[in-house]
C-alpha cells in the first residue's frame, strides 16, 4: 500500500484527517462570511447580528445544541463500533518505539523540540501560550465584531490568531502526524518510513558562522546581543510605527497592554524565525547560556 494512505488510514490518525477537513471548512466559511459582512459594512448596509445585542438562549441556541449533540453522538457511536481502539505492541520497558510520538494534540509542541531547547519548547513556550490565551480578554480593547464575522474591523486580531492557531498549532500537528517518521526525520507522503535511514545534516550555532565558539565568552556575548536586540527592536519598532500612523491606538492601549501584546507577539514570531534559521541555515542555537539555549 502507498505509505501515505497507510498513515492516514491508521485508526489513530483518522481524527486528525477529520480535523484537517473540518478546520479548513470552518475557516473558509468564517472568512467568506467575514468578507461578505465587510462588503455590507463598506456599503453602509446593516449586518445580520450586528445590532442583536441580546438573543434568547432557548430557541436559537439550545435547539441547535441539542441537534448537534445528537449528531455528534451518532457519529461517535458509529465510529467506536466500526473502529477498534488502536492498540500497539505490548509495552516493553526495554524498547523505545521509534518514532515516539506524543498524543496528537501535543505534536505541535513536540515539533518545537526540533528547533528549541527542551526547556523553552517544553516549559516556557507552553506556559506563554496559556498565559497569552488568558490575557486575551484583558488586552483586546476592540469592541467591534461582536455577534458577526468581520475582517476589516479586527485585522490584527484575526491575522495574529490565524497565524498562531492554523500555522503554529494545527499545521505543526499535521506535520508531526504525517510527515515525521523514525528518528523524527522528515518523510514526504510518498516516502517509505525506513528505520535504518541515515541523514547527514550538520548543524552549527550562529556564532560558529563567523568562527567564534558559541560556548566561549565572546560567543555568549554575541548571542546575547542578537537575542536582546531582537527583543528590544521588536518592542520599539511597532511603537514607532503606530506613533506615526495611529497614535490614537497607543493611547487607548496604554503602556502595560502594549508591552504585553508586543512581548507575546514577538515571542510567537520568534518561533517561525528560529524554524527558518534551523531549516534553511542549519543553525542550532543563537545563544547558549549555562541554563538554557535559544
Amino acid at each position, binding site marked *: 500500500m502507498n505509505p501515505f494512505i497507510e498513515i492516514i488510514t491508521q485508526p489513530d490518525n483518522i481524527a486528525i484527517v477529520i480535523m484537517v477537513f473540518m478546520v479548513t471548512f470552518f475557516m473558509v466559511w468564517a472568512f467568506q462570511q467575514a468578507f461578505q459582512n465587510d462588503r455590507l459594512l463598506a456599503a453602509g448596509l446593516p449586518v445580520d447580528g450586528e445590532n442583536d445585542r441580546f438573543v434568547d438562549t432557548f430557541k436559537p441556541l439550545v435547539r441547535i445544541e441539542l*441537534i448537534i449533540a445528537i449528531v455528534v453522538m451518532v457519529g461517535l457511536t458509529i465510529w467506536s463500533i466500526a473502529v477498534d481502539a488502536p492498540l500497539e505492541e505490548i509495552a516493553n520497558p526495554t524498547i523505545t518505539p521509534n518514532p515516539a510520538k506524543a498524543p496528537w494534540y501535543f505534536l505541535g509542541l513536540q515539533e518545537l523540540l526540533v528547533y528549541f531547547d527542551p526547556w523553552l519548547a517544553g516549559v516556557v513556550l507552553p506556559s506563554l501560550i496559556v498565559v497569552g490565551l488568558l490575557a486575551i480578554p484583558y488586552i483586546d480593547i476592540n469592541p467591534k465584531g461582536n455577534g458577526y464575522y468581520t475582517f476589516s474591523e479586527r485585522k490584527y486580531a484575526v491575522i495574529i490568531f490565524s497565524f498562531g492557531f492554523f500555522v503554529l498549532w494545527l499545521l505543526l500537528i499535521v506535520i508531526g502526524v504525517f510527515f515525521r517518521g523514525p528518528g523524527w526525520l522528515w518523510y514526504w507522503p510518498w516516502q517509505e518510513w525506513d528505520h535504518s535511514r541515515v541523514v547527514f545534516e550538520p548543524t552549527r550555532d550562529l556564532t560558529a558562522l563567523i568562527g567564534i565558539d558559541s560556548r566561549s565568552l565572546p560567543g555568549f556575548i554575541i548571542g546575547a546581543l542578537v537575542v536582546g536586540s531582537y527583543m528590544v527592536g521588536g518592542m520599539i519598532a511597532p511603537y514607532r510605527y503606530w506613533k506615526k500612523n495611529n497614535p490614537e491606538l497607543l493611547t487607548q492601549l496604554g503602556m502595560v497592554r502594549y508591552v504585553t501584546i508586543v512581548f507575546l507577539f514577538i515571542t510567537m514570531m520568534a518561533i517561525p524565525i528560529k524554524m527558518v534559521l534551523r531549516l534553511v541555515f542549519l543553525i542550532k542555537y543563537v545563544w547558549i547560556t549555562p541554563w538554557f539555549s535559544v
Partner: protein
Amino acid sequence: MANENKNNSSYRVYVFVFFSVLLLALSVWVVWDDEFGLRPWKKYQEDYKALKQDKLEKDYRRAVVDFQRAGGHKKLAELEAKLSKAEAAFQSKENQDKYTKLNSQFEAAHDVLTKSQKELRDLRGQFLETEYYYTKTQQPEYKAKMDVLQRSIDAVGLRVAAQQKVEESIKGSLSALTAGTAGIRAEIENMKNGLEEKKEKIANNGKFPIEIKQIHIKDIDKADRCQSCHIGIDGKSQVSNKQPFTRHPASFVYLDHHDPAKFGCTFCHRGQGRATTSAEKAHGNVKHWDEPMLQGDMTQTSCLNCHGDIKNLRGAESIIKSTELIKKYGCYSCHKIPGYETVGDVGPVLTQVGTKVNYSWAINWLLDPKKYFATARMPKFYFTQDQAESIADYLFSMSGTTRHDVDNTKNKPDAKLIEEGKALWAQSRCNLCHATGGRGGNNTKVYAPDLSKVGSKVNKEWMFNWIKNPNAYFPGTKMPRFRFTDEQINSLVAYITTEYQDEEAEYKYVQPAEIKPASIAKGKDLIQKYGCYGCHKLQGMEDMVQVAPSLKKQGVTFLRNTEMREKIGMELSSIGSKPVEMLDFGKLKKAIPNDRLSYIKQKLRDPRGYRLGLRMPNFRLAESEINELASVLYGFTDANVPTRFLVPSRQELDRMAGVSSYKFTGDFAKVIADVKCTNCHSIRGIGADYAPDLSIAGSKLQEGWIRNFLANPDVIRPLLQQMPKLGLTSGKPPAKVTMPKFNLGKQKVEDTNRSDVDVVINFFQQELVTSDIPKVLPQLKGTTQDELIAKGKQLYDLKGCKACHQVGTDGGALGPNLTNVGNRLTQGFIFKHLENARKFKPDIVEPNYGFTEAERIYLTNFLMTLKLSAK
C-alpha cells in the same frame, strides 16, 4: 425575520427527528454488538450444545434399540409381572399383619436405642469436661468423678450394643419379608439403569451455562479463555470433528499429563488467550501480537520450556528429531544456547590438518564443502579462492613443516593386499558409520564422514596412523580404535585409497614451496572473523596456541584459549521470545512477513540476506530441515515458567542435588575412550540409542555369552546393525588415553595384563548390576527341577509365546529369538522380566500377562533350558 426563523425551525425538526431515530437504531446496534457481535463464543457454545444434544440423543436411541433387540422389553414385562405378583403376595393379610407387628417392634426398639445412645453421648460429654478440669487443676475429686463416669459409660455402652443387636435382628426379619419385591425392583432398576443415565445426561446437557470459560494460572498470571470456544477440548468423547468443537488430539499424552486447569492453553500453544472477540485475535494472528498460536507438530517446541531432557519424551517426537539438528550442525559452536554448553566440538581437530589432507583438497573444501560430498555438514562461507588459499596457508603453516602432495593414484598396491583390506572393511562393519557411494552410514548420530572419495583427500601415512590410534590425532573423536595389526591396517589403507577415489574433482591447487607470511596473516584474520574456532580446535589442549615456526619468526603469537572460545554469533537462548521489533529485517522488510518465525526461517535459508556484512555461513539446509530447526529455535524462550512446571533433566537434578553425574572409572573408562562403546550403546544414561542399553548388562547377561559375543559379535540382526568386531579379545586397554574428560584420578592400580574383555566383563559385573534382579530364583517346595521345566513348557505353549518368539525354526519374529536364551540371559533377569517387562525397557511391546510368581519360576526354568549346543 420571524418568518425566516419559522422556516428554519421546521427544517431543523426534520434533522432532529432523523438523527434521533438514527440514534435509537444505533442504541439497538450497540446492545446487539455488545451481546453477540463481540461475543462469538456464545454461538459456538450454543452450537456445541446442539451437537452434543444430537450425539446424546443418538446414543440414547441406539441404547434403546439395543435394549429392545436384546429382548429387554420382554424381560422387563416379565419382571414387572413378577413384581406385581410378589407385591400381591406381600399384600396378603397374613404378611401384612406380620409386617405391621415387626414394624412396631422395630420402632419401639429404635426408640429405646436412641435414648440409650443419647445417654451415652451425654456421659461422654461430661467425661470430657471432667477430664479437661482434671488436666488443668489436677484435683483428685475430678479424678474420682472421671472413674465414676467411666464406669457408667462402660455400662451404657454395653447396653447400647445389646439394643443395637436387637434392632438389627428385627430389621433382618423385616427385610426378609420384603426381600422378594425389593430384589425384583433392583433387577428392574438395573435393566433400565443405562437408559435412565443417558436420559439424565440429555436433560443435564441443556443446563450448562453459556459463559466465558477462563483458566487462570496464578503464578504466571496467564488467563486463557480458549475454552469459551473450544468447549469440547477436554471432553471425554469426540462430539464433532469440526473446529472449534473437537477434542484435543492425543489427549492421553498431552492433556492427561498437563491438566488444562493447571497449565492452561497458551502456555504451550501461545496465542492471545485473553482475546474473546474473534478467532483471529484469540489465535494471535493480529498485528502487534508477537506470539501467534502454534499448531500441529510446531507446538512441540513448547516442550522445551519445561522439559530439561526430551530424549524419551512421549509426544515430543517431532521436536526430538528437530533438536538433533542443533547437534548435527553444531549451532552451539557459534551461538550461546542453554543446555549445549558442554557439548563438544562439531568439527574435527585441525591442529595438524596439514599432515592429513592435501592442499588442493583443503581449498576445494573451503570453497564448497558440499561439492566434495553432498551430505557435508560444513557450511559454505562464500570464500573467494584467494581467501580459501590464505586460510589453507594458515592451517598448513600451523601443522608444522610436513608436506605431502602425495598422489595416491600412483604406486598401486598389489591386488592381494586390497582383497584382504576389502574383507577386513566388511568384517569391521566400517559401513555401519561411514557411508560410501550412498550406502551405509546407518548410525547417523555419530556423523561419520562419507568415505566415497577419501582416497583423494587424505594422506596414506596419516590414514595408517589414524586407524592405528585415532585418539592420538583427535582426542575425543568418535572413531574407535580397532585392535588391528599393522599388516591389517596396511591392507585396509590399501583398499580404501584405491577403492574410494575421486574421479571427477580436479586437484589443481599446488601448495607453495614456502607459504607467504602475508597470506598466513590474512588467513588468521579470516579465521578470527568467521569464527572457525567455534567448530574446530585450532590448537592443542594447552592454554596457549601452538605457534607455527614460520609465524614465530615474525613474532606472531596467537590468541589465548579463553578468548578463542568466545561465541561469535548472537546468543540464542531467548530467540523464541525476542520482540519482533528487535529483529532486523533489513532489506527484506517488505519481502517477507514481519514475524519471528519467518525471520528465523529466512535467516536459516539465506543467512547473509538481510543486509551487508553478516558473517553467518550458509548451511544450505533442506526446507524440511529449516522448518525443524526453526521449530527448535522458536522453543528457546525466556518464558516465565512456574517452578512447579519444570521437569529438570537427570543431569540438572544431579547438579542441584550436588551429585556428580555418572562417570566411568578405571580401566573400563580407558576402554570406552578407546573403543567408543557409547557411540551406539547407552550405559547409565550416557551414550546413544543405536544399540541395546547396557546399564544392567551385568545382571542381565551371562559371562560366557558376553565373552563369546565380544569375540564374535554376529547376532541375528540386520547386517548394518551388527556390532563391529573390535578385536577386544586380543587387545588390551591403552596404557594412556588422551582423553581429558574421564575421571582417571581415582583410578586404582589395576592389573595391566588383563585383556579388554576381562576389563569389560569385570566392569559389567561390578558396576552394571542392579539389586532388582536376584541372582537365584525363589525356591518352590515339593517340585523337582524336571517338573518345573515341564510346567514351564506347558505354560509357554499355553500363552502362545511362540507367536512372537522363535525357538529353533519354530515361532514368530516379532520378539527376540529365544533359541539360545538359556546361555545368554541370567535366570534372575528372565524371572524379573516376566513380572514386568517395562521395568527395564519402558517402550517394549511385550504384553504384561500378570504371571504369578510360581508361573514365572516355571517359565524361567524352562527358558534356561533353551541352549544352543556348541558346535
